[in-house]
C-alpha cells in the first residue's frame, strides 16, 4: 500500500485515486481513510483526484508517541501534499480532521481552494468545562451510550475500558456492518492510552479565537442539528469566519449525530460539491448525489 515517508520522519498511508482537480480528505480521531471510500470517494473519483490519508497514529500510518496537535497534523498534510506534488486542493475534513483542515487553511492558505468542514470542534472554542471532560473522554461515553453501549458511571473516564467495550460490539457502518469486529484493536487502544493525542487535540497553538476571523479562504461548514456538543463551534465559526457558508443537516431518529459522512454520505457528497463549485461552474457530473439529498444549503 502507498506510504509517504515525510521529512519529519513520519510515514503516512494514503490513497490517491481518480482524475481531475484535487480533493483532499482528512478523517476524524479514531477513524481511518475508509470512511471516505465506502461511498463518498466512489461518487467523486470519476471527476476528481481524491487524496485520502490516515492521520498519524491511525490506520496504517505511523503511530508516534506525540505530535498530534492540529498544527502538527496540518504540517503533516502539507508535507504529504509536497510529497505527492499536490500544489493546491479543496480540503475536506470530518471532526478532528476538520480541525486539521481549518488549521491547514490558517497556516497554508495558498495551498487551499475551498475548505469543507464537517463537524469541527476547534481547540480554541472548546469551553473550559468541557475541556476537562474531553481529555477524560467523557464525550466518548456519551456517544457510546447512544450507540447502545452503556458505560457505568465509574468507568466513564476509563478510555481503555470504553474502547474494549466498544470493540465487542458489531461494526456500525459499511460492508461489514453488524459483523462482530473479530480483529484486535490494540492499535486504537495504544493510540488513546500511549500517546498524547487527547491532550494534543486541544492544543490551540496560533489559531486563537481572535485569529479565526483572519482565515480568508472560502469555508463551508456542515453540522448535524443533533450534534449538541459541537454546537458552540458551529455558532462561532459561522459568525466569525469572513468567507463562510454553512448548513445544518437534520439528524434522523436512527442516526448517530456527528457521523454524517457515514450516516448520510450522499448528502455530504452533495455538500462537498456545492462548496467547491460555488464560485465557478459545476463540473460535468453523472452522480445522482444531488437528487438524493433533501437538504438545502443555508448560506450564512
Amino acid at each position, binding site marked *: *500500500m502507498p506510504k509517504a515517508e515525510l521529512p519529519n520522519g513520519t510515514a503516512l498511508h494514503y*490513497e490517491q*485515486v*481518480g*482524475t481531475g482537480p484535487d480533493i483532499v480528505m482528512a478523517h476524524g480521531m479514531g477513524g*481511518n*481513510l*475508509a470512511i471516505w*471510500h*465506502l*461511498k463518498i*470517494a*466512489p*461518487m467523486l*473519483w*470519476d471527476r476528481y483526484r481524491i487524496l485520502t490519508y490516515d492521520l498519524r497514529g491511525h*490506520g*496504517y500510518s505511523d503511530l508516534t508517541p506525540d505530535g498530534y496537535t492540529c498544527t502538527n497534523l496540518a504540517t503533516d498534510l502539507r508535507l504529504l501534499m509536497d510529497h505527492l506534488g499536490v500544489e493546491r486542493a479543496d480540503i475536506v475534513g470530518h471532526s478532528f480532521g476538520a480541525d486539521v483542515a481549518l488549521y491547514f487553511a490558517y497556516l497554508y492558505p495558498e495551498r487551499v481552494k475551498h475548505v469543507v468542514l464537517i463537524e469541527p470542534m476547534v481547540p480554541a472554542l472548546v469551553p473550559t468545562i468541557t475541556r476537562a471532560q474531553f481529555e477524560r473522554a467523557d464525550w466518548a461515553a456519551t456517544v457510546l451510550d447512544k450507540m447502545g453501549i452503556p458505560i457505568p458511571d465509574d468507568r466513564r473516564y476509563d478510555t481503555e475500558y470504553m474502547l474494549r467495550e466498544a470493540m465487542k460490539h*458489531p*461494526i456500525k457502518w*459499511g*460492508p*461489514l*456492518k*453488524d*459483523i462482530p469486529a*473479530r*480483529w484486535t484493536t490494540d492499535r486504537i487502544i495504544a493510540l488513546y492510552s500511549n500517546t498524547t493525542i487527547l491532550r494534543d487535540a486541544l492544543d490551540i497553538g496560533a489559531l486563537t479565537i481572535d485569529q479565526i476571523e483572519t482565515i480568508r479562504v472560502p469555508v463551508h461548514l456542515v453540522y448535524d442539528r443533533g450534534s449538541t456538543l459541537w454546537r458552540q463551534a458551529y455558532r462561532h465559526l459561522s459568525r466569525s469566519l469572513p468567507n463562510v457558508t454553512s448548513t445544518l443537516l437534520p439528524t434522523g431518529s436512527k442516526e448517530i449525530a456527528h457521523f454524517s459522512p457515514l450516516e448520510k454520505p450522499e448528502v455530504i457528497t452533495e455538500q462537498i460539491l456545492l462548496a467547491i463549485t460555488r464560485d465557478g461552474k459545476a463540473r460535468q457530473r453523472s452522480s445522482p448525489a444531488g437528487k438524493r439529498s433533501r437538504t438545502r444549503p443555508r448560506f450564512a
Partner: protein
Amino acid sequence: MPSADHVFQSVLHAIESLSGDWEIARPLTPETQLIGDLAIKSLDLVILASSMVKRYGPIPFDQLYARMESAPPKERDLTIAEYVEFVLQNAPRRTPATNAQS
C-alpha cells in the same frame, strides 16, 4: 477490457501487498473468502478497491459495499472470484492510461 485472469492476478497481488498487517493462512484461490478466510477489514477492502480503480479506472465499489451490507451478517461474504467478476462487470471498457498504475 481486462481479462479475468489479469484482474485475478491484480487482486492477488493487492491482497498479498496488504498481508504485511495480517497473515494469510493458506494459498489464495478463487474460492478464498474475503471475510470468512481473510477476516478482511473495511480499511483493507477500500485499499484493495483503490488498487483496482488505479489499474482499471472508476469502478462503483460503493455498489458492491451496499450489496454486501444488505446480506444477512451470518451469510455475508465475498469470494475472490466474485470480487473479480464485479470488477470485470463494472470496469470502464477502456482503461484510462493515466490511471494504469500498479
